[in-house]
């Protein structure tokens, strides 16, 4: 860890102690940064501004002549439309369930993999594999190969033991999507938490054991506090990715059966219903929701980052 972070500090020190450079020199230092910065601002920030502007218009793409300024009316409509309100609720439910479940499972797996045992590398590889399927392929796998009521693997296995033959997607549509996402995201959580576990100080752990601390005490009072920020990081990054999930909802239920989340609704509103103004207002709401998560996420990342820099 020290070797990786030492240059940070010396780099920062150099930036401070360098003689006040001439304007030309300052621009020479900045020059390598500019293409990336300008590119990012143009491609990611301008569209957001455009979305913000469009959200203030009553604009259906099928009737371009009827476009007119509508103020905040779209937001009123988005917030009062029961379908859109449901999609907000679905998004929250989907995100919270998937993040919590994969975090708990990921923690269990990380604790198992933190121990030495025969074939640990292979098990790690097996566990990562679900995360490395193309998301659409993973969703297709769950939809057709596992969930299908007639020839899916789940009902096939149930058949072998004489169990019932449920129609998984129709009877519990949201749970069906959540299960497939938990399967894909648990490895992600496991990798982050495993990195956290392996960054514990082994001297301190050993000292605690010598002093007679039980495994549970070590976990409760040493491992868990140490893991706190890794848990937070996993939860926040997971939330950011899953709030935006489109692939699983689109593939498994096509947004039907009450599973349409906000990204799917935004897509549906302008791609199928051509309601540009409404879609933009919904998009802005997604952004506001994400900013709340992102503020916390940035704080966690920056505290981890500063700790790395200062530990050197």
């Amino acid at each position: 860890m020290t070797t990786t972070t030492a240059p940070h500090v010396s780099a920062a020190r150099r930036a401070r102690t360098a003689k006040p450079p001439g304007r030309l020199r300052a621009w020479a230092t900045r020059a390598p940064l500019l293409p990336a910065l300008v590119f990012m601002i143009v491609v990611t920030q301008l569209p957001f501004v455009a979305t913000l502007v469009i959200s203030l218009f009553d604009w259906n793409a099928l009737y371009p002549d009827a476009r007119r300024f509508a103020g905040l009316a779209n937001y009123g409509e988005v917030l009062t439309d029961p379908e859109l309100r449901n999609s907000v609720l679905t998004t929250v439910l989907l995100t919270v369930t998937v993040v919590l479940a994969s975090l708990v499972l990921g923690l269990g797996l990380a604790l198992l993999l933190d121990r030495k045992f025969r074939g640990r590398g292979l098990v790690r590889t097996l566990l990562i594999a679900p995360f490395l399927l193309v998301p659409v392929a993973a969703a297709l796998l769950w939809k057709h190969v596992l969930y299908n009521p007639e020839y899916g693997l789940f009902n096939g296995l149930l058949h072998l033991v004489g169990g019932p033959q449920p129609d998984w997607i129709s009877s519990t549509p949201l749970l069906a999507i959540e299960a497939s996402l938990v399967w894909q995201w648990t490895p992600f959580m496991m990798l982050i938490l495993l990195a956290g576990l392996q960054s514990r100080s082994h001297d301190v752990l050993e000292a605690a054991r010598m002093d007679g601390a039980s495994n549970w005490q070590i976990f409760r009072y040493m491992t868990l506090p140490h893991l706190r920020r890794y848990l937070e990081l996993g939860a926040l990054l997971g939330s950011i990715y899953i709030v935006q999930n489109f692939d699983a909802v689109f593939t498994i239920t096509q947004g039907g059966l009450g599973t349409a989340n906000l990204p799917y609704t935004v897509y549906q509103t302008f791609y199928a219903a051509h309601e540009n103004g409404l879609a933009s207002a919904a998009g802005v709401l997604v952004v506001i929701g994400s900013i709340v998560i992102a503020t916390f996420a940035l704080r966690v990342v920056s505290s981890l980052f500063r700790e790395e820099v200062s530990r050197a």
Partner: protein
Amino acid sequence: MSTLTVVRKGGVPNNSVRDNGVRSRGAALGLLAWLAGIVFFLPIAWMALTSFHSEEDAATNPPSFAAALTLDGYRDFFGAGGGASPWPALINSATASVVSTLFVLLLALPAAYALSIRPVKKWTDVLFFFLSTKMLPAVAGLLPIYLFAKNTGLLDNIWLLIILYTSMNLPIAVWMMQSFLAEVPVAIIEAAQIDGARLPTVLARVVAPVAVPGIAATALICFIFSWNELLFARVLTGTVAQTAPVFLTGFITSQGLFLAKVCAASLVISLPVLAAGFAAQDKLVQGLSLGAVK
């Protein structure tokens, strides 16, 4: 464990009972880990097996585990049964992923240099600006981009996806590369400069050897994200520029007996990601956590 080794070194024989207990508990936990690994991998293993079955054997209930193996699913997927060939989509995906990754490297390398080796003032602020763009949902910018593409004739053009994928992956790449370049010892760079080495020489001889493994991992992760992307590809491409995930959405509605074909398609299209992911395994966490976890 460690206390036991200490005790054993002390030569107290009575502890062997407890030693055995701990060892068998360790074995049980190892077994549990194996079990978990198998459970998580089972759907993929079943998908692989099904892809080598005939359509009739793939759709039995209870499942036929020991049915005869055939390559028909793969032949069917590659268009032998008269369906659309996946090759144009695969080539589009490869083009979009590889070219956008090259663009990302081209933009991110100099930026990371200006954020680590010769840092600009307030370099952490710049770094966090890049990160914050990644946290805003892409879907909110989709409509203006769609309207822009429609008005400029860029709809169904692979270059539009290349530009967008570059912007999606650039923040991740800047963060990862910044942390990799920061690992290059400053003292060595300074020593080389004192010896009279010019910047290109320093970059090629001093920076590159340390940073190349990290750059390779960054490239692989950018490749994965581009290859996987569905929403933008689905909205912004049609018949000409459609990518592999868009091609896969053709299997969303059931088409009679098609399970082996779906499995073959999912596996073939996931293969580049699986390969890239396992190649970048060690740096995967760092990339996915945007450099926050090392």
